[in-house]
């Protein structure tokens, strides 16, 4: 994974709360068996409305999404993160993320930062006053800034470290091979095994 540090991009407002992953990418777009090319599914139902924010310049090139609270609820589909990433987003900010979405984002190099509801409204207003507003995302400092305004954001330390180092989770875990083998050696014999198959 690419290391992430500081970047600047156009911010797009998504003025809705409780945006579930069925809205981020409807199920019908989940059928690809590759890990890329999901941009056409991003908010597909909403994008049929020509007025939808991401359909129009300058937001069609946005890289930072400022969303309402409870973003990414519902289905566990990681495709929601892939779709945001493939569309060009590098960061999403909300006052609250659903757990699975938040975890998925961190694994795919999408910064998911938590800001307050007040900060969300302020940024929306700033974008309304100046569409095309570019914001700077400083991951090491955990700050989002534009003009003279600096907004701190929260991200858990471990995810931040991994994003900054560009580390792969599996590689980190495999450093614990001995501990995993030790656990397996003391695992109870009554626990189920799928093989050999029974009941077939």
């Amino acid at each position: 994974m690419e290391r992430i540090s500081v970047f600047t991009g156009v911010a797009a407002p998504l003025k809705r709360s409780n945006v579930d992953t069925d809205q981020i990418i409807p199920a019908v777009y989940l059928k690809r068996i590759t890990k890329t090319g999901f941009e056409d599914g991003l908010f597909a139902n909403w994008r049929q409305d020509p007025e939808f924010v991401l359909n129009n310049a300058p937001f069609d090139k946005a890289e930072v999404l400022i969303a309402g609270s409870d973003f990414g609820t519902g289905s566990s589909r990681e495709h929601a993160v892939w779709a945001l990433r493939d569309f060009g987003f590098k960061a999403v900010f909300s006052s609250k993320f659903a757990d699975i979405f938040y975890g998925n984002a961190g694994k795919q190099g999408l910064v998911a930062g938590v800001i307050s509801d007040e900060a969300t409204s302020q940024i929306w207003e700033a974008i309304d006053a100046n569409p095309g507003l570019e914001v700077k995302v400083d991951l090491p400092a955990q700050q989002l800034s534009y003009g003279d305004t600096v907004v701190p954001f929260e991200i858990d330390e471990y995810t931040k470290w991994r994003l900054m180092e560009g580390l792969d989770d599996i590689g980190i875990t495999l450093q614990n091979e001995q501990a995993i083998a030790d656990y397996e050696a003391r695992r109870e014999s009554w626990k189920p095994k799928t093989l050999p198959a029974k009941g077939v």
Partner: protein
Amino acid sequence: MTQKPLTLAEKLWRDHLVVKGENGAPDLLYIDLHLIHEVTSPQAFDGLRLAGRDIRRKDLTIATEDHNTPTADIHLPIAEPTSRAQVQALRDNTAEYGVRIHSLGDKNQGIVHVVGPQLGLTMPGLTIVCGDSHTSTHGAFGSLAMGIGTSEVEHVLATQTLPLKPFKTMAINVEGTLRPGVSAKDIILAVIAKITTGGGQGYVLEYRGSAIRSLSMEGRMTICNMSIEAGARAGMVAPDEVTFEYLKGRPHAPEGADWDAAMEYWKTLKTDDDAVFDAEVFIDADTLDPFVTWGTNPGQGVSLLDSVPDPASYDDPSLRAAAERALEYMDLQPGTKMKDIAVNTVFLGSCTNARIEDLRAAAEIIKGKKKADGIRMMVVPGSQKVRLQAEEEGLDKVFKDFGAEWRFAGCSMCLGMNPDQLGPGERAASTSNRNFEGRQGKGARTHLVSPVVAAATAIRGTLSSPSDLEG
């Protein structure tokens, strides 16, 4: 030194700890059972292949086909090319890596969360994961079961472990006795309406109390299934005699000395008397009505005896805006009685409510009755085993005589991913778990209901409870 009293969730966490995380790193937990389906696994297998990694424990991994599969004409090739490719990818991947699979047409095929329990693979005291948010279903057995993303699927395939941050714990206390016509589904819809769709975020829910104890395993699975709709990643019920009775004799249940050893451990799987939950919620089962949703998230629900709420009644501006938007999408007016809402489709199915008991409950209501004019009713068993069992009991005949479509197993109309979809503007009473915009088809409108409310609605054509059929 006395040991700190623990909740059930904390005990399961403790017993699966491989490495304790330090300096902000998550804990590494061992995963006992990994369930796989065709939608969230192709990219995980690709990742393994790219990295030249094998599956660590094929003997703890099992696959089935459910999301994309058709529920009619299953002997024909899957018509839709992308669905066919996704199912084929699962077959190819499981063949290449030596993973057990139950494919379309196999008697063990079905919705992944119905298949695990019926094979006896789901049991108390396990950690269970699947690339599907409704994995919380398996918590009904007293397991820590949760949905994961595709990167995590790859992680579990490669390492049989998962890095996880500890959760907070929430007790959902449901005391009392349910009235006739009120069921597990109504409990969980009432819970979600109470704590909202974000209320469980960061928590593992433990459902407790006399009303939960009196439920069958099917009912407990219905409740745990929708923990995710309350924002929680997992929900659980401590195992008891009902659990052990359900499990005993199933194909993969422990036998002999293993059964005894398991029982000894399973009986310790309950929250200690003086353990403290981070949050507690109380629901009165005695006064609970059948619950239905009026909006576009599962927290937007009311008693069936109630009316569509007025968005102006919400103080919180974001809740008010969400309600306004939901009513527009649902084409409903504030003040309309829920029982006056007419539907054109009734869907009995999904990992929430398509087990044998759900089918029996619905069949009991419609037996000898006539379906309302113009209503389409689809009955989709959760697994082929459920379908066969229902046919053995003659339930298929009850449904067919009533005029319902009797289908093969799969996720079906719960999500618009296979041929079973609603058209734009169509309105369904659905026993599934999500009433999101477009979930059952583009522009489709969903009211979440219990199996008996679904059955009564199919008879009357408007949202109804079984008690409306009397007299």
